[in-house]
């Protein structure tokens, strides 16, 4: 394990640090519940108001929304705030004093940063939407269980894929931040893509037929659309494995792009000065 020691250590340290922010987790959970309710109300009104048959049932849309809220933090909206802070303070170059691969280092930290925030929020959201809501008589609006046992297992696998893909994208945003020396531009640019193209705001199933195949091939689909369709059993067996393969393929490809780009940006810093 020696080659991975620095990166595992970075992951563990950042995971523990991030997990300490309990207030943020509870506040985030509250906000995500609130937004979940609003989204469900809007989608319910949309379903009630349109006479034709919809591509997915209201029941699925409700579950889809709660799942989306549970795993919302996986959506890459920002680069790593630590990296943004280093850019402001001019300390990026000092990461280069360590005998490690900068991309791997950032990747491990990004992975820890997202997963440590998702874990408590997702646990709370499942407890609320799957257990509390039925108990208080709102079963119609609750989070339903996955289609079957294989679907649940594949879903878990696919969530791991989401984590890896999300970290790849976060590191790419980091590189843009370092290259442009400002975090606002990159963060502003990526959020709409993440939100819309992942299927987080509107499920990709509700997009027009001609657009859907292309939407499902692009990387952001792997963040929401793929795992959630696996959850419903909409993608099963080989098809589900293919979906997970696509997620991982994008994760590897984007990480490779990030790695190449970090190298270039760092070479430039080495020339221009930190």
């Amino acid at each position, binding site marked *: 394990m*020696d080659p991975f*020691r*620095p990166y*595992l*250590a*970075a992951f563990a*340290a950042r995971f523990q*640090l991030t997990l300490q922010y309990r207030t943020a987790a509870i506040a985030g959970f509250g906000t995500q519940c609130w937004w979940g309710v609003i989204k469900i109300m809007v989608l319910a009104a949309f379903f009630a108001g349109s006479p034709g048959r919809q591509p997915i049932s209201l029941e699925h849309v409700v579950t889809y929304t709660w799942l989306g809220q549970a795993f919302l933090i996986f959506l890459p909206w920002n680069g790593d705030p630590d990296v943004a802070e280093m850019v402001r303070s001019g*300390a990026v*170059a*000092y990461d*280069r*004093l*360590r*005998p*490690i*691969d900068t991309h791997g280092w950032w990747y491990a930290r990004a992975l820890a940063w997202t997963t440590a925030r998702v874990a408590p929020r997702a646990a709370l959201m499942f407890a609320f939407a799957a257990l509390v809501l039925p108990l208080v008589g709102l079963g119609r609006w609750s989070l339903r269980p996955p289609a079957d046992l294989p679907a649940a297992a594949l879903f878990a696998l696919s969530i791991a894929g989401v984590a890896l893909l999300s970290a790849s994208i976060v590191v790419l945003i980091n590189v843009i931040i370092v290259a442009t020396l400002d975090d606002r531009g990159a963060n502003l640019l990526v959020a709409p893509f993440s939100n819309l193209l992942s299927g987080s705001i509107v499920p990709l199933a509700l997009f027009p037929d001609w657009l859907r195949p292309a939407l499902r091939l692009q990387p952001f689909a792997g963040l929401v659309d793929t795992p959630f369709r696996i959850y419903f059993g909409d993608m099963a067996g080989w098809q589900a494995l293919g979906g997970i393969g696509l997620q991982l393929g994008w994760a590897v490809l984007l990480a490779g792009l990030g790695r190449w780009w970090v190298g270039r940006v760092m*070479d430039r*810093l*080495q*020339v*221009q*000065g*930190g």
Partner: protein
Amino acid sequence: MAPQIVVDGLTKSYRVAERDAGVAGAVRGLFRRRYRTVEALRSVSFTLEAGELLGFIGPNGAGKSTTIKILSGILRPTSGRVMIDGLVPYEDRIAHVGRIGVVFGQRTQLWWDLPVVEGFDLLRDIYRVDPARYRRTRDELVALLGLEKLLGQPVRQLSLGQRMRAEIAAALLHEPRLLFLDEPTIGLDAPAKLAVRQFVGRLNRERGVTVLLTTHDMHDIEALAQRVIVIGNGVVLADTPFERLRAEGLADLGPEVDPERETMAIEEVVARFYAHHGAAEI
């Protein structure tokens, strides 16, 4: 045996974007960028033998930090050659930085939110230090630098003096044979400065660690360095034993310097030296 560090004809120039003052200048800058070339280093050459303790002094903006950054591998010189223990720092970065220790007095390299001891553990894994060996080195450093009570505190809660001692320990956990200290005593109170000086002196004498130290505090130099390099306007102005710099400077000041002014004198000597070479900023 070849010197541990060979620096030969180092130059470094930056391109800085410039614009005229005011709104009109800003608008003009949108269409046509003007660049000014800043020459941070014009020609720096020196060698350093293993086990030496070299003081690197010079006025602000002289090129000290740029030199240290090149030697530690995070900057690439515009021209010239550096060889440290058989490696070119900016070309074999990972191999090189694994063998050196660096402390920047104005920066924190420890993670701000982590307790000191966890920051040390993280460095153990970053440098892939054998755990048993790490424990021995860490306990030794903790005892020598008096860090026992600080280990459980997050770095952000430390005072500057405490933090600097922790930073120095952090730079030595992987037992480097070469240590770069860039203004390690900046902003420290007298006891903290003394602690840092004593420790660095011992490290050099007893362990034979080669030290390259930059500072504006001439007492650091006086207490530690056998040899000083004075750098100004990007060139080496003097490379001499410290005693000689001082003796020549005192002679220049004339006979009116009485021994009571001795402590004042060293600052004065250096200030005169900078001014004499047109290197001072003011």
